[in-house]
């Protein structure tokens, strides 16, 4: 089990391991978005709320880009999941 730490799940929603994220960084990813498009980490139900910090740390450690220059990921709505029907009802308020 010497490679056990490589198999630690970083993105729990999409079940993306540390090994997969390091592979994305080796493939040229220098941003959180770069890791996301290569691995799908951060594309799941929580939209990167859990894995974002861990991936930022791994990117900074890789030396691809100084931590201070890491672009924050694009913030997009919604903050919490909501049903399609709720968006439509909003109009009648």
């Amino acid at each position: 089990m010497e490679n056990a730490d490589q198999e630690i799940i970083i993105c729990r929603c999409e079940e993306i391991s540390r090994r997969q994220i390091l592979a994305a960084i080796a493939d040229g990813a220098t941003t959180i978005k770069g890791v996301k498009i290569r691995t799908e980490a951060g594309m799941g139900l929580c939209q990167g709320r859990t894995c974002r910090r861990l991936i930022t740390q791994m990117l900074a450690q890789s030396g691809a880009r100084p931590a201070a220059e890491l672009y924050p990921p694009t913030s997009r709505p919604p903050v919490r999941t909501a049903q399609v029907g709720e968006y439509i009802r909003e109009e009648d308020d």
Partner: protein
Amino acid sequence: MGRTADVAVIGGGVIGASIAYRLAKAGKKVVLCERYDLTAGATGACDQMVILQSKNPGIHLRLALDSAAMFQDLSRELDYPIEYFRHGGMITIENEMEMGVMTDFVARQKKIGLEVEIISRADAAKRQRGLADHLLGCTFSRQDGHVNPFKLTLGFAKAAKALGAEILIDAEVTGFKEEGGKIKGIKTAKGDVDAEVTVLAAGAWSPLVAAQVGLTLPIKPRRGQIIITEPGPPYVVGGILSAQYIVAKYHPETLRDAKSRGVQLGVGLALSQTAKGDILIGATREFVDYEVSNTREGIREILKNAARLMPGLKKMNVIRIMGGSRPYTPDGLPLIGFPKGREGLFLAAGHEGDGIALSAITGRIVADLLTEGKTYTDISPLDPNRFPLIAS
């Protein structure tokens, strides 16, 4: 640090990556330069469709058919799973006006060779649950499909690299290299690239790059907002558009006096489900410069429209909303070819909402033209010189 290439490609979206792959495959030394990262622009914020039915009967549909044929074998060719599936597609028809437009549209598409027909609401309901009761019917084509735009682009890029191409990310173009009145390469944030030909494939951002050599491209950014639901079991079968979209695209005069906010935002249904299970619900078509943020109004109008056509969507949970700048052109066709008066530059941009669908064939056409000077079909309607590119 300087590099030398046969061809420099500007733009790491699906079009640039496809071109880089085909050129590398044809034996050219290629360097692709991308300002941010692969798929950073419209490619990474689009609706995944390879839908043929939305294409105008003519060169547009012919190229889309040829592109779709290439997609069928592309996962194997690239040795990368691009997730291309042909689950068919439908266009919803709500009223007699739309039925008239679609009847004519379908008849002309059949002549080009698309397998498409108009089916009753009852038959449509056998393919897709959750459809609205008021629909008059739908068009249906089994040749429609969808593909994962991220995997498609990464697949092209990986295969290009394996063939010797170099992909530079964080490599914004800062200027062109000119020599004796000819463009001989580009200057980028990652160093100079000397090249015999420079291909500009920067989508909606192409006009900003072309302006550096005095060209005025008729491409304008047009925002599309798209809503993503949480992954769920299979629900949306294939791709679903609304005839509103076709009417708005090809008969804009019918909407000129429209009072509905949704119509003014260019809202038309574009619905599909990814391999993972997320449902993509689109989209707006808005001229708001390079703004890609989301608006409450845009989100509400998209969802109102979608739920009107498919009430079954109301229970779905939204997890993310995105927006991208599509490269609009005045005649709806891309600019592919050499612009007059700027020797050494080649344009391949302006696919608007068809970039994913036309990516495969665009790569082939550009590689053909740059290696053999000709391609398999008449593409004169795509000639960039149909527009005045140099201000007089």
